[in-house]
């Protein structure tokens, strides 16, 4: 008995046509690849992750090591991005700073996605009282400006990277829950869900196997874009001094430290600022591209 692969190969030979099997995700990937901006975003994101992982190999200096005699130097061959007031290499600090940003982006958004998916599924699929309660709580979260909420939580929990994860993670769940809920509401009434129920599938199976894969696309898009937001919020918190604590290198903190010297040593502020800009841009471009890629109407 010939396997399916062999049959396909045979047909390809006969007809000269490539046999392609497409699913939603493969299709999306195909469309994403055609989108130059999205691919730029993806490259930035991938590069950034590589930089974060291999930071010790790339950075020429220890990011917290002070070289007193070399303080406040402009960019040069020795110090690509110059040095700061305490004589630390800004290039190394920017590279190490990517670790904080990526961690915050991924972990904090991961937390919001997990919480958001859980409550979104609960309220979208079961509806009724749980829906009402969850959505009203979400409303309360929406009532706070994002940054204000983050400041409030950080003040309660105290500074530190883990608390940043928690603060940003908790604040982000409401929008994820909303999106997932609405996405479930549309999928829930599709006939194939009814068909699955008529087939005897349990609630758990219907949610996990039938609703999830169909309603995941908007979550992926939103989460990707949200990574950018999370990175900005982390930078803002660190800038305000309630985020990552010194001497750890974080972009927001570097901005704050160099703010007063912007007229005499602009490089101290320029490079970390640029790093934030490029990173956020990367995630937003990728998210934007994903949104287009998942939209079947743009086929």
């Amino acid at each position, binding site marked *: 008995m*010939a396997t*399916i692969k062999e*049959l*396909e190969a045979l*047909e390809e030979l006969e007809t000269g046509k490539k046999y392609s*099997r*497409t*699913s*939603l995700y493969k299709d999306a990937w195909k469309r994403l690849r055609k989108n130059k901006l999205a691919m730029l975003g993806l490259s930035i994101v991938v590069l950034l992750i590589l930089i974060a992982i291999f930071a010790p190999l790339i950075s020429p200096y220890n990011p917290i090591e002070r070289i007193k005699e070399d303080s406040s130097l402009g960019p040069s061959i020795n110090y690509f991005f110059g040095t700061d007031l305490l004589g630390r290499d800004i290039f190394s600090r920017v590279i190490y700073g990517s670790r904080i940003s990526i961690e915050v982006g991924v972990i904090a958004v991961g937390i919001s996605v997990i919480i958001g998916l859980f409550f979104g599924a609960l309220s979208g699929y079961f*509806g*009724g009282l749980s829906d009402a309660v969850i959505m009203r709580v979400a409303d309360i979260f929406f009532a706070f400006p994002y940054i204000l909420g983050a400041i409030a939580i950080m003040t309660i929990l105290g500074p530190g990277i883990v608390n940043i994860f928690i603060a940003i993670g908790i604040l982000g769940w409401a929008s994820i829950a909303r999106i997932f809920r609405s996405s479930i509401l549309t999928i829930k009434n*599709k*006939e*194939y869900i*009814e*068909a*699955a*129920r*008529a*087939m*005897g*599938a*349990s609630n758990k*199976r219907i949610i996990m*196997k*039938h609703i999830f*894969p*169909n309603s995941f696309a908007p979550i992926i898009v939103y989460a990707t874009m949200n990574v950018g937001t999370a990175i900005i919020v982390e930078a803002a918190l660190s800038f305000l001094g309630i985020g990552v604590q010194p001497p750890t290198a974080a972009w927001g903190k570097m901005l704050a430290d160099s703010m007063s010297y912007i007229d005499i040593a602009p490089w101290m502020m320029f490079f970390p600022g640029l790093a934030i800009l490029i990173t956020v841009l990367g995630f937003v471009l990728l998210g934007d591209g994903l949104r287009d890629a998942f939209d079947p109407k743009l086929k």
Partner: protein
Amino acid sequence: MAEIENNKILEVKNLSTYFYTDDGVVKAVDGVSFDLKKGETLGIVGETGCGKSVTALSILRLIPQPLGRIVGGEIIFEGRDLLKLGEKDLQNLRGNKISMIFQDPMTSLNPVYTVGNQVMESLIVHRKLKKEEARKEGLKLLEMVGIPEFKRRFNSYPHEFSGGMRQRVMIAMAIANSPSILIADEPTTALDVTVQAQILELMDELKHKTNSSIIIITHDLGVVAKYADRVMVMYAGKPVEFSNIDNIFYKPMHPYTIGLMKSVTRLDEEKRGNLKPIEGLPPSLIDLPKCCIFSARCKYVCDECKREYPPLVEIEKDHFVSCYRAKEFMEGIIERFDN
């Protein structure tokens, strides 16, 4: 007598399903009773919104909650009342002993899974088969329902299939566990005529192979005439006539059934006049009058019809009608097919 009793595989007694909407209570199904015999095809006929589909969904307890509720009746299957079963037992039943084919094959398959995957699913859920075994079974099923190149198509996605092929896949999924009852809710409405015939042939063939019973819900009298053994005609949530196929087509005794018969084209008649539609529209199912619901559109309406709803009576053997004047039709006092 005992044998006849045993022959009944499903018995629905006085089923009532209401929907509680903002505008009032919609009595989508109101006091429907019927039974299904082993190996039989039962047709449920009626116009849109008469409660055919809700009847079918009620049997599987798939009425959308919390809007709809089954407010009364019994559905006896294998000695158990389905209305009293817990969710777990129901899940074991659905797709296993009783399965359903839906109207629109275009939307009834999950777009993110391969067809094979979906056929395997009910085997894995109910028979607890391993992936490899389920795959073998699934391939067999696809072959059985006549999917060409089924080995290759096994890994295709639903959007790569045509409507007819998808409906074949739906059928494969429905018969995967050799159910004793197959409920087909307008299985051919979304398909074109030639494919319709193929699908119906396929269902009939599989029915004989697996010795299951079929409930076919349709508004297509042609489908009923060819495939059903008995027919229940529904109007506004109530059964108005229930009998075997010959009685329904040749000796209809409810004015509504008669109206339906007059409104289809017939090739076997000498004189071909214009089609006779039933005048008027079906009533809103909210706040139904106490009188005969059809009376407003009925040519033969009498005073009694406006007082009370006529009960469903067995006017001759195995022929149930709910009309006060049915006797007159039977005795020929009123000519049925006069123009």
